[in-house]
Structures are given as structure tokens and as C-alpha cells.
């Protein structure tokens, strides 16, 4: 019996099918990765919670944004791009002793000490210590989100600047680099985690947010 040859399958339309699928995926999927400013909301307080401790006025950096998006920093009109330097000067002041600190590799201090890593003016009328320096943002109900985010971003820049400077001195690389390393590493080493924690403890981000009633 003669061997029958199987006829060749016409693959000419294969490309069309593949194109169809490709276009379907192009339309229904997105490539952009969401990004933004991360903040942690304060926990809900129980009704019988003790009143919050009173923070000394010199330890509070007050930013007020009104309904027409004007910015008032420590009772003076300011532009958005001025906030970073003002915030750095405030956080980094180091006028007095701070709260006791503790990080991996260091026992909790019994008493707070001076901020030895601060390079600020040590003005007695500004903040005592980075871990006592509170930044308070007061907004109106009709403040625009754009302005609010811009202010938050400036504060973020101020903290990043200080943390980078400290990390450069302590570990010879910037804080931003350390975070990137942490992101890229498959197994994050305990040392890197500890180092990041240390920087965070030395310049903690304390931002409070409230609405003007």
C-alpha cells in the first residue's frame, strides 16, 4: 500500500490569530505600577484613652494650609519649595536631650541624650531632638489634595535628606541606596535591616495631620 502523505497544514493565518490575541492583551492589561506617598494612619483611640501628652510648642512645626491653598509655616506665609529647608532646620536642630532610643545592637537608653548626629543650629527655641520633633499639618476641609500632597512630599524630601546624610556618615552609602538594596535582595540580611532600622530610629518621621474645625 502506498504511503499517503499528510497534506501540509496552511499556517498562513497563524499570524492573524496571534495578532488578535496580542491586541486583546494590549487592550485589557496595564503596565503601570502604582506608586505614591505612604503614610500610616494613627490607630483608633478607645473612648477612655488617656489624653495625649502635651507637646511643647518649640517641638511642634506647624504647617497650616487654608481653603485657598495658602501655606502658613510657623505663622508665616511660605511657598511650597521653602518648606524643605525650614523642616530640615527644625528637625535637625538638636537643642536639648531627646527621648531614650533603642535599635538593634543597642540597648535602650536609660535617659535621653543629646543628638550627637545633628548638625543644626542648636537653637533653644526650636526642637529638642529629632525624636521629639513633631510636624503638624492642619488643613481646611476644602484644601486641595494637590497642595496637601506637595507639602507631604516636601517633608518626605526633608527626612530623606537627613537620613541620607546620616547613612552616608554611618555606613558610607545613602539611605536611598540601602532601601533599594533591601528591595532587590532576595534574602534581606539582618545587618541591612538593622542598619535601616537604626537610621529610622535616629530620624523618625513624626507627622501629625488634623483638620481645622
Amino acid at each position: 500500500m502506498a504511503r499517503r502523505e499528510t497534506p501540509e497544514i496552511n499556517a498562513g493565518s497563524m499570524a492573524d490569530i496571534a495578532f488578535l490575541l496580542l491586541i486583546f492583551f494590549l487592550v485589557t492589561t496595564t503596565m503601570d505600577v502604582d506608586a505614591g506617598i505612604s503614610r500610616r494612619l494613627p490607630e483608633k483611640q478607645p473612648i477612655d484613652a488617656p489624653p495625649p501628652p502635651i507637646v511643647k510648642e518649640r517641638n511642634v512645626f506647624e504647617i497650616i494650609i487654608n481653603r485657598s491653598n495658602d501655606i502658613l509655616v510657623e505663622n508665616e506665609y511660605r511657598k511650597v519649595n521653602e518648606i524643605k529647608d525650614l523642616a530640615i532646620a527644625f528637625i535637625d536642630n538638636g537643642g536639648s536631650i531627646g527621648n531614650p532610643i533603642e535599635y538593634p545592637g543597642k540597648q535602650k537608653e536609660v535617659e535621653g541624650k543629646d543628638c550627637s548626629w545633628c548638625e543644626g543650629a542648636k537653637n533653644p527655641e526650636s526642637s529638642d531632638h529629632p525624636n521629639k520633633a513633631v510636624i503638624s499639618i492642619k488643613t481646611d476641609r476644602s484644601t486641595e489634595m494637590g497642595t496637601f500632597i506637595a507639602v507631604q512630599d516636601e517633608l518626605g524630601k526633608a527626612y530623606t535628606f537627613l537620613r541620607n546624610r546620616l547613612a552616608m556618615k554611618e555606613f558610607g552609602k545613602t539611605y536611598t541606596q540601602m532601601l533599594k538594596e533591601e528591595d532587590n535582595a532576595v534574602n534581606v540580611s539582618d545587618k541591612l535591616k538593622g542598619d535601616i532600622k537604626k537610621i529610622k530610629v535616629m530620624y523618625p518621621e513624626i507627622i501629625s495631620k488634623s483638620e481645622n474645625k
Partner: protein
Amino acid sequence: MSKFKKKKKGLPPINTASLPDIVFMLLFFFMVATTMRETSPLVGQDLPTAVEIKKLSEKRLVSTIYVGPAADKKTYGDGDKIQLNDKIATVKEVRAFIYAEREKVPQDEQSAMTTLIKSDMKSTVGTINDIEAELREINALKVTYATRQGTEK
């Protein structure tokens, strides 16, 4: 003059046998590199820009709330609208939405969940505060305000 035979004109056909391979390659690239679009925003989304931003790579652990002026003003009217999943909702519904999102994630990862607030530049902080008050009630404390990447001036 039959000596000069007419030469056959025209180019030989291009072999397109490998075209499907190329297209398939592209297809697989897109299938791997992209994620499904889950909702399409019904509210205006002109995001603010910021420099100090963090990427949210784990899409599973992110629940997105859209805030902005409604695109369809005739139905929904003016002012900031909140969009949950595929419909415009009220602040009161935020809680149920977050609970539903939590259900989709295994127990041990629920604490790592983030709420992404995608808010238009012109939205008011008051609306966002209302949402955040709801989030605090149900202990969903990790919040990210979506922004576009800006450049340092």
C-alpha cells in the same frame, strides 16, 4: 527578437513563515509583563506629582479607592465622588469594600494590605479625611496617596 526574452518582473514573495513566531513572542512578553486592568476609573484622575514615592509592587495586597470629580456629571452631579470597584459609592460603603478586599487575601498577609487612595489633584482633603476616618475604624492603617513620579528641581 525572441532572443531577448522578457524577463519576469516583480520581487520574489517574502517568506512570512516566521511572522507568527515573532508575534507570539510579543504576545508572551505582554502576557508576562502586564497585569489585568481590573476597573476603569469613572472619576477624573489627574494625579499630583511627587518625588519621594514608593512603588507598590504587590498588586494583590492593594485595594484601590478612586476619588475625583465624576466623569458623567449628568448622573452624579458635581463635587468629589468616591469610586469603589466599578461604581460610585458613598463613604459609608468603604468599610464593606475593605472587608471584601480582605476576604480575597490569606489571613497571614492581611496585615500587609495597603489602601491606595487615587485622588485627583483638585479633590478636597475633607473627602480624603472622611475616608481615612472610616479606614481607622476598621484598622486599615496603611495608606498610600497615589502620585505620578516627579523630578527633583
